[in-house]
Structures are given as structure tokens and as C-alpha cells.
């Protein structure tokens, strides 16, 4: 059976699309799926750095669609995680060297090989966005609890709906302390406006910055709250859609506190 093509998009830049793509790719691969992640941000490639694979790039997605290399040659295998592959973006071209027809062709081929193809969509709603959603079966909209991010996400959701794609929502970089103080929108406010299915809530986590710089996937760091959230999102995508979404605002239960005391912090991971 053919796999799924999932586009990860947000409208606004800097909300964590690339981190979400890299993390979900790693998490799905760790759960035993065959995963390809494609960097669609032609001209401003990042995904390779976040995944720690930049020094192994020979061919990129533009070379593939222009027929300069075979698909297999452009797929960079992650050495730490089995079944995880990256197709990097080109750093020297412009977005319009790829057309929507090219993406249809590419995704059709990737679907045959991989269970999940994750497309890291560039910011904006221009050519790069249009290319990315052309062949997508599903979409994940990443949104920060911030008014400008919500508005851009809303626009993108409208555009996705007009192409009959029903997106799922990830609220990224929640700072529970700020929400408690009333200085940040709560995820309920975000869901209220966007009114699409929530697939995950990710707390703001310093270890994400560390992981981005070192290229070590956040989902492999057992201590990280964000890593755990990404693992759970991957599970929801991967046949467990009803797994409850953990609310970072919920008061910690007695048992979790106790578990923390006696050193069983990561029971959820095992």
C-alpha cells in the first residue's frame, strides 16, 4: 500500500516547522516506519542542519526533479536512526525552479518507497507553499500561541481547506508560566480561533535549541518534554489517533510527582 505525504506548514516563519518536521521524522522512524523528509525551502535550506546531515549532501531535490540524479542518490540516510532519509533543498536556486507537477511526480515515487513522506514547507503562501501542498494527503499546521502566528495559520488553513485537505494542529512553544500569568494565549484560545483537530501541544524547551545546534534528534533525548510531545504526535499519526493530548497546563498529579521523586521520570517513553 502507498504511504502518506504529510506537509508541515504554518504560514509564518520561525514557529518551528523545521524542528517539528525533523522531530516527527525521527520519531516515526524510531517507531519502525520508513520515513523520508523533504526540505522544500529552496534557497534557504535548514532541515539538513537540524538533522545534522549537512556535510553529506551531494544531490538535492532540485537535482531530482530536473533529472540530474536518481531519486536514490539524493536520499541521505540518517546513520543513527534506521529508515530515516532526507532529501535536502538546494541552497542556490529559487522556489520557482520546481513546479507543482514536479512535486506530484516526486511524491508519487516517494509514496511507493516510504510509509511517511514529510514535507518541510517554507514560510509564506507563495510558490514554495503551493509546491508543497500540491501532492500532500495530509497537513500539519504549526502555530505558536501568539496572535500573528494564529492569524497566518488561519490563512493557511483556509487555503488548505480550499484544496480539500483537512489539517491537524500542533501548538508549539507553549510557556506554561506565561500562560498562567495571562501573558500568553492559552492553547484553548488558539484552538478556539482555528477550530481544527488538535494533534499535539509542545512546551517551549531549551533542549530544542541544543538539539538543533548539535543535530541530535530531540525525540532521542529522554529528559526532554518537547521530545516526549513529538513522540506522542508521531504515535497519533501512526495508527493511534485517540491517544489523549497531554495538557502542559494541567496540574501535575500526585503520582507523577512521586514518580519524579523516586527517579521514574520517563515511564512514558519505555
Amino acid at each position, binding site marked *: 500500500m502507498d504511504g502518506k505525504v504529510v506537509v508541515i506548514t504554518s504560514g509564518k516563519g520561525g514557529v518551528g516547522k523545521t524542528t517539528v518536521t525533523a522531530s516527527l521524522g525521527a520519531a516515526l522512524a524510531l517507531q519502525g516506519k520508513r520515513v523520508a523528509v523533504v526540505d522544500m525551502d529552496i534557497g534557504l535550506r535548514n532541515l539538513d542542519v537540524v538533522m545534522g546531515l549537512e556535510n553529506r549532501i551531494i544531490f538535492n531535490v532540485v537535482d531530482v526533479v530536473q533529472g540530474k540524479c536518481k531519486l536514490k542518490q539524493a536520499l541521505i540516510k540518517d546513520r543513527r536512526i534506521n529508515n530515516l532519509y532526507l532529501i535536502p533543498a538546494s541552497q542556490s536556486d529559487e522556489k520557482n525552479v520546481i513546479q507543482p507537477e514536479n512535486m506530484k511526480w516526486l511524491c508519487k515515487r516517494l509514496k511507493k518507497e516510504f510509509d511517511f513522506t514529510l514535507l518541510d514547507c517554507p514560510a509564506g503562501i507563495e510558490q514554495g507553499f503551493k509546491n508543497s501542498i500540491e501532492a500532500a494527503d495530509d497537513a500539519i499546521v504549526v502555530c505558536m500561541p501568539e*496572535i500573528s502566528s*494564529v*492569524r497566518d495559520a*488561519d*490563512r493557511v488553513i*483556509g487555503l488548505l481547506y480550499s484544496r480539500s485537505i483537512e489539517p491537524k494542529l500542533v501548538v508549539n512553544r507553549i510557556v506554561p508560566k506565561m500562560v498562567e500569568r495571562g501573558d500568553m494565549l492559552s492553547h484553548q484560545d488558539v484552538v478556539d*480561533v482555528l*477550530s481544527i483537530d488538535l494533534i499535539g501541544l509542545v512546551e517551549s524547551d531549551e533542549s530544542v535549541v541544543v538539539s538543533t545546534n548539535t543535530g541530535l534528534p530531540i525525540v532521542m533525548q529522554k529528559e526532554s518534554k518537547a521530545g516526549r510531545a513529538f513522540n506522542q504526535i508521531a504515535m497519533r499519526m501512526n495508527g493511534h489517533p485517540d491517544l489523549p493530548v497531554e495538557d502542559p497546563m494541567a496540574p501535575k498529579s500526585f503520582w507523577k510527582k512521586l514518580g519524579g521523586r523516586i527517579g521514574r521520570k520517563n515511564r512514558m517513553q519505555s
Partner: protein
Amino acid sequence: MPENGRLPVRLKGVGDSLWVTIDPAVSAEELKTALKNPFEKLKKLAVNARVVIDPQNGGGRESEPLIEELGSYLKETFDVGEVRAATEKADPPEASAPQEIPADPLSDLRGDARIIAGRVRSGQKIHAENHLVILGDVNPGAEVIAGGDIIILGGLRGTAVAGQPDNEEAVIIALDFRPTQIQIGGLAAASDPNDAGRGKFPEFAKIDGTRIVILDYTKDNPFRRLAPPEKR
């Protein structure tokens, strides 16, 4: 039995009844079989329906027993309501006069509104020549524009522009009134960013003198005192 290429039974809906044209030359048994198929297709529609049987010969006496027999057959098998013969000179179904609608004293009070269902998202713009009704929310960044009133059965958080270009009587009503900006006629009003506690109850905006005011719809319903009903 097709005779001259015509079916022995033809069915038509006329007014509030079913008009069945039969061929009197065909035997009653054959007519029954021919009736069975179309009536079965009607299923529940046939229950309690009024049926007029037209034997096509001017309603002569000789076809009465046939009609009676078919009538009782239809009543038993398909539960139809009333069966009668076509009277007079078999006025053809095509010529049947359109039913007269009883005069409604308010029927000329008809307004004109565009009704949209669903959420209006950021970047989307909805125009209406006259009134606009939105069955859903208007998100921040969305715009709804109307020549007359804007009625939102949901939350208003985007921009609403009513009474374009110069209708100062227009109102904007929303069940959860938290707009970014509103305009009525030539006036505009922006939301107060410090006034975050509003909303969650129905409010409306209208022009009062030279400014836009926002009032609680349940307390100051502007239409409550209109009697008799007026056209909007």
C-alpha cells in the same frame, strides 16, 4: 401492452394529486400489473396520496366499474388516500391551473440577504449587496462587507463593514462581539485593546449621532418595538 407505441398507464403529479392516465382498451388485470411498478417506486409517497384516474374517453359511464376496481386495488396494495375519476371533459394535466396562493399580507415585505454558513478565516473576504448573515465565526484577519446589515450567528473577531457606501441605518450584530474594527456607512471604530473582558454575549453596533455605539442586544434590541413588521 403498448398500443400505438403508448404505455397503458402513465403517471403524473398534478397539484396535490397523482394523475393516472389509463388506456381503457386494456383489461383491468393488465392495468394492475402496469400500475404496480410505478407505485412501488413511489413507496411512501403513495401513502395517503390523492389519485385521479383518467380513462381518456371523457369520463363516460362505461369506465366507472373499471376505475372503481383499480381504485380499490390501489387502496389495498399501496395505501393511497382517495381515488376518483377525472371529471368533466378530461381537462389535460398540462392545462391544470396553477394553484392560487392565499394572499399573505406580509408577503411584499421581502428583504434580500446573502447567507453564508461556515467559518470565515483570515484573508477571506465576503461581500453582500444587501444584508449579510454569517452562520459561523469571523476570525481575526477576515473581512465581511455588506450594503446593509451584518448579522453573525457566532463570534466576530475580524473586520465588519456594514451599510456600504452610505447606509447609516445599518447595524452589525454578533453573538460574541470582539471585532478588530467595524465600519458603518462612513464611520469607523477600532476595538480597544485593553478591553479584553468583553464578548461572549450578543451585542450590536449602530450609529448614534456621529459615532458608533455598541450595545447589549438582549437589553437594547433595536427591532423589538417595530410593529407591524417592517421590511429591512
